[in-house]
């Protein structure tokens, strides 16, 4: 019973934290949906740890918690992979921006040089 209270409370805190992040616009919606989904599952399993036992036994896994552990690790791996992918994309985008800035700076330098020449002559 004590364990249920602990896991349930943790899940509630987790959900509250995500909700707060979304409310303050710190999380993009696509991530918010993902994490709220995760929070709900964690809450459900926190309150009813034995709920997945039947599914686990059907898969040949000893109990529901082990099954959750397995899926949890897989899920985290996928999330990490997704973040690496996002980071690569962002680096590509910032690279283009850096190039644009360099070219704009050059154009500005040239323009101010030309203005100086014109005002000098």
């Amino acid at each position, binding site marked *: 019973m004590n364990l249920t209270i602990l896991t349930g409370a943790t899940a509630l805190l987790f959900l509250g934290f995500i909700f707060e992040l979304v409310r303050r616009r710190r999380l993009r919606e696509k991530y918010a949906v993902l994490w709220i989904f995760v929070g709900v599952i964690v809450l459900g399993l926190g309150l009813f740890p034995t709920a997945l036992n039947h599914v686990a036994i059907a898969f040949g896994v000893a109990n529901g918690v082990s099954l959750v552990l397995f899926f949890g690790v897989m899920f985290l791996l996928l999330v990490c992979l997704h973040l690496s992918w996002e980071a690569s994309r962002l680096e590509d985008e910032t*690279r283009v921006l*850096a*190039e644009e*800035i*360099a*070219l704009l*700076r*050059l154009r500005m330098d*040239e323009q101010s*040089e*030309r203005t100086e020449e014109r005002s000098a002559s």
Partner: protein
Amino acid sequence: MTDTLHAEELGTVAEAAVEGGAVEAGPRRTQRVLIIVPAWNEAESIGSVIAEIEGALPFVDVLVVDDGSTDGTAAVAQQAGAVAVRLPYNLGVGGAMRLGYRYARDHGYDVAIQVDADGQHDPAYVPKLIDALSASSLVIGARFAGEGDYRVRGPRRWAMTMLSWVLSRLARTKLTDTTSGFRACNRELIALFADWYPVEYLGDTVETLVRALRLGYRVSQIPVAMRQRQMGTPSQSPLKAMLYLGRAFLTLFLALVRR
């Protein structure tokens, strides 16, 4: 800017001369050539490198891509008479080169030549590179091809041998120095590299070669002697050399399987 205008005038004059039936002043005169010098904190050597290039090759324009330097490399380059573009932060050689090719494409250059800022590439070889472009799209100024006495040992050497072997097969011609940063390319490849140029280490040399070859462009090399770097020395630690070998394998493998 004045340099660009100067070269444009030169180009037009030369073209007019050819059209008028006058004696052609050699292929170099009608082509607009840009030397791209990627530079990261090279303020101490960049000035003399530019001076040497302009002394040896009055018909080229020099673009220095300042790759996020903190020592005023761009200012020194401008003082020396080059056009300098400043990246806001360090991207690596590949990042600097894509910007250089973009500039070359936007300004309509026929030939773009990469020359390192540390003075190891001798601009005296540039006319040979340009001449070789009449038969290929990309020409590498290569060590180990008879000229010069540059030597490497250990895993770094194995990596270079492996890369040369594979790329020579792909190119159907002998390429002895695939990681050389001294290379020239023509208009078509300028257009390709302006949109696509890898930033990863070794990607800027090896992967670009593989891509060019897979797209059916001809790649060749001419032998050059490289000089000692004016500043700094390449690292000789065995661990780093092993790491280099690993990265060489990875880069080559990815370059071969990537779409």
